[in-house]
């Protein structure tokens, strides 16, 4: 096992091939879940992404991915430990939060009563017992309102696994229905967040990642 993880720990960093003046694509690594899949997804698209917790590398990147799988309270404490909770809201380049990453960019989440980064002015709630929790599988995204969804059809399916959701708000750029209509994607200025996993959402997910790289 150690051999395998070692071999894959450092994918070669190549010069930015998507036009920015900075240092390519960084995936924030703060110990929150399996983020290899995101790196692999970009690799399939021909882009090398760096997994990093280094503040300078993140600040200088052309594009930043803020992933997250797991429990919100734990993830936020990991962010605080590394000081990234202060850095992320100050980033100027396009930032894409995925799943828990997006939820942590909101004001507050009911999960472990956790205060978020406050980038998106919205709260994160838990689905009720009227539906199966977690929501697991492919659901549609509608009312698409951003270049992030260029060439992606209304009603396209994306893969989701989550028990908490962001409420509809002024910053909603995609809507999904599960028990209620909720925000499955958010945008404010250079900050983007998606509740679904584009890295696991087949061709549509790949298109979204490509779109993010060209923002």
């Amino acid at each position, binding site marked *: 096992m150690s051999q395998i993880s070692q071999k894959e720990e450092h994918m070669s960093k190549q010069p930015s091939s998507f036009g920015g003046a900075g240092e390519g694509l960084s995936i924030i690594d703060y110990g929150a879940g*399996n983020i290899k899949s995101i790196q692999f997804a970009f690799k399939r698209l021909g882009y090398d992404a760096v997994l990093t917790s280094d503040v300078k590398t993140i600040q200088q990147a052309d594009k930043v991915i803020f992933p997250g799988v797991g429990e919100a309270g734990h993830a936020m404490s990991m962010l605080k430990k590394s000081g990234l909770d202060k850095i992320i809201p100050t980033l100027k380049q396009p930032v894409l939060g995925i799943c828990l990453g997006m939820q942590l960019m909101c004001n507050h989440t009911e999960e472990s009563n956790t205060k978020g980064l406050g980038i998106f002015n919205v709260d994160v709630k838990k689905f009720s017992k009227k539906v199966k929790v*977690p929501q697991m599988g492919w659901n549609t995204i509608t009312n698409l309102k951003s270049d992030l969804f260029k060439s992606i059809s209304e009603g396209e399916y994306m893969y989701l696994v989550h028990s908490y959701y962001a409420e509809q708000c002024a910053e909603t750029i995609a809507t999904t229905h599960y028990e209620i209509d909720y925000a499955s994607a958010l945008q404010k200025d250079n900050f983007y967040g998606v509740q679904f996993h584009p890295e696991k959402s087949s061709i549509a997910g790949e298109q979204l990642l490509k779109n993010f790289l060209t923002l």
Partner: protein
Amino acid sequence: MLAKRIIPCLDIKNGRTVKGVNFVNLVDAGDPVVLAKQYAELGADELVFLDISATLEGRKTMLEMVLKVAEQVNIPFTVGGGISSIEDVDALLKCGADKISINSSAVKNPDLINQLSKKFGSQCVVVAIDAKQIDGEWIVHLAGGTIPTKLNLFGWAKEVESRGAGEILFTSMNNDGTKAGFANKALAKLSEELNIPIIASGGAGTKQHFVDTFVKGKADAALAASVFHFGEIPILELKEELKRNNIEVRL
């Protein structure tokens, strides 16, 4: 709306698919990565890899396979078979598995479910339950249905939910291999009594069986092996049939 999921299951031994797979135009039908990519392109919603390697060497090869699948396949996948510790799960998730499935080890050590869901999150913990209906009662079995336990299917399912499982993969030993349809009554009862997704397994033979398991069995997903591997039921045709029956699917 959330779509019902179609999940092909591949048995893996020493890094190769076994029981045979019969796709046309495949250079290497034994290579799980080639097959996984093919299934993703054909419209599978998820994949399950079941490791049936008996040796330590086979297990190591499995990790290498998981890494290759994660690198090359753009849909989620679950890995099961022989997982009995936090370390096992950690290694699989680090190689890029989205979920893991435990079965015997959960029965022998139920606290493992709590530990895994706490450490890695419920979303990646699937508990597989094999059960056989004997004199009207559904009894949980281990080791591929050969060893009966004292556990009742529904009681055990509720316990695994309360311990933090994110999903249940229920295989009916009575139906498995019969190609006569899924155990829809038991499935519907599970779905009504529990609040986590239920994957139906065992008995797929026709497209109608899938329609039935989603409608009558109230399943959230359906898993099958041979009907997909031998092209008896092409996934796209299956999904079109489901759609004609007003079942939400990703097409």
